[in-house]
């Protein structure tokens, strides 16, 4: 009895620690007062202001666009890497390939952002492109560091995947390409979707890399939010938080649904 009481307490405190800040944020988003910390009464005023804030709406649209596009590209390339690492024996300079596909996972974002910015500047000096930084450069950077996350999910899935299933399809008359499209990809489709969702969220949430590689007309949502809350509090951001947290948590639940490997 005693140990199960300790267990419940630990789990309860842990979950409380994880959810308390989120609940506080949502709670204050309904505060009427412009001074965030002084409770004046329940109101949807800041939600209303949020939806009329063109800067935030525009940033939101840009962020979604970049996130969807970079998640799609990162998923395509990440699936290719995951497949190559598990199924293809002859990869030239394999260690280098592994280095390229796994380092972005551990590299601090700051260093990645700096390297991308200096790369785009140097590229512009050499070939005159990209003449200025903006959505395209953020997109390229996001693809680059999301690839690794997708690759690792796919790699894990394919490692689990019984290779006999592919061989059975071949034995029944399907050639390599057909096996890929009719067997391998359909079976790992849930993991591909999970990888896309993860990449989408990472891109949507990224501040550091986007700050380095952004330019005129490419203020993503995190950049706008950061500029608003860096030095103080913003009631509009509270409202935005509540909505965004909710949306992202839904995406997270979908991720768990698709990435069944998680559940064993």
């Amino acid at each position, binding site marked *: 009895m005693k140990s199960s009481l300790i267990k419940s307490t*630990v789990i309860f405190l*842990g*979950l409380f*620690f*994880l959810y308390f*800040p*989120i609940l*506080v*944020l949502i709670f*204050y988003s309904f505060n009427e007062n412009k001074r*965030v*910390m*002084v409770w004046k009464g329940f109101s949807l005023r800041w939600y209303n202001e949020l939806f009329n804030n063109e800067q935030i709406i525009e940033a939101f649209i840009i962020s979604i666009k970049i996130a969807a596009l970079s998640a799609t590209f990162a998923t*395509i*390339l990440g699936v*290719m*890497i995951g497949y*190559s690492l598990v199924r*293809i024996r002859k990869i*030239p300079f394999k260690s280098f*390939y*592994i*280095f*390229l596909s796994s380092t*972005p996972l*551990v*590299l*601090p*974002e*700051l*260093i990645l952002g*700096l*390297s*991308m910015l*200096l*790369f785009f500047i140097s590229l512009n000096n050499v070939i005159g492109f990209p003449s200025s930084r903006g959505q395209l450069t953020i997109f390229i950077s996001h*693809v*680059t560091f999301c*690839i690794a996350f997708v*690759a690792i999910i796919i790699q894990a899935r394919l490692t689990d995947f019984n290779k006999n299933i592919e061989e059975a399809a071949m034995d029944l008359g399907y050639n*390599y*390409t*057909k096996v890929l499209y009719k067997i391998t990809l359909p079976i790992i489709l849930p993991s591909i979707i999970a990888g896309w969702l993860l990449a989408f*969220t990472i891109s*949507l*949430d990224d501040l*550091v890399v986007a700050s380095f590689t952004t330019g005129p007309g490419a203020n993503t949502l*995190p950049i706008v939010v950061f500029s608003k*809350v860096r030095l103080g509090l913003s009631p509009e*951001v509270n409202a*935005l*938080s509540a909505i*965004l947290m909710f949306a*992202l*948590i839904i*995406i*997270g639940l979908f991720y*768990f649904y698709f990435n069944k490997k*998680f559940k*064993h």
Partner: protein
Amino acid sequence: MKNKLFEKYFVFSPYFWLVLFFFIPLAIIFKISISVSEWGMPPYQDIFLFDNGFKINTTFENYVYIFSDYYYIGSFVNSLILALISTFFCLLIGFPLAFYIATSNIRLRNILLVLVVIPFWSSFLLRVYAWKIILQNNGILNVILLNLGITSEPLQLLYNQYAVIMGIVYTYLPLMILPLYGYLNKFDLNLIEASKDLGLNRIKTFFKVILPLSVPGIVAGSLLVFIPVVGEFIIPEMLGGSDRLYYGKILWEEFFVNRNWPGASALAFSGIIILVLPIVIFQILYSHWSQKNEI
């Protein structure tokens, strides 16, 4: 082999992308870090000069400069200490949580696991922002402390290194719990019972059975927390004060404020060598090893 053309695309498309957009940028950081800085745009000289014949124009000045100035080394050390402390607290909170989740029955386990990781899916920036609200002078925590009579006037909780540690432990906790859970989940719970059956009490069982078996999980989780925290920029920027400078902030300012590109690049490249390289080498060795032992 016939019909295996797609394999070439699968290997080489991402290869091409990563060499172009990941490897070359890293190489450029290195190149700029050994360039001579000057006033102008870009604020460094080319490393190959062709005016009077060919000349290689490189320098290690930038490295000497950052490694001889306490301002840089000190902040790097600050970051390492911060990462160490945060990792320790993540482990302290994460281990019992992961352990108790792993020992719950299977249905509850999955629900708890999702509950633990879901906050990680919500916006990083906003979760840090939430602590800004909690730790305000008139924020919830101070209100509670005042009402309980623990303190008579609001404490300055925000804008210091403790707030930074708080924010980091909060945001990185799921990264610690996941690998820990992964390893704890794998091992046979009967081992704990067997150990108790053989006469070890709860504490001894923990130190002699549970802890040794979860070492791989502890290492993996600690690395996942430690490395990004060293380079963390947002949390100190939002919750920290001027009491301590960290690596991320210094790098940012060196680049954007001082416009010292070679210096910033040298800082970044040193960070890669010190932090990332050991882990990458370990990973490559490990994957070679596990592949060899597969057949």
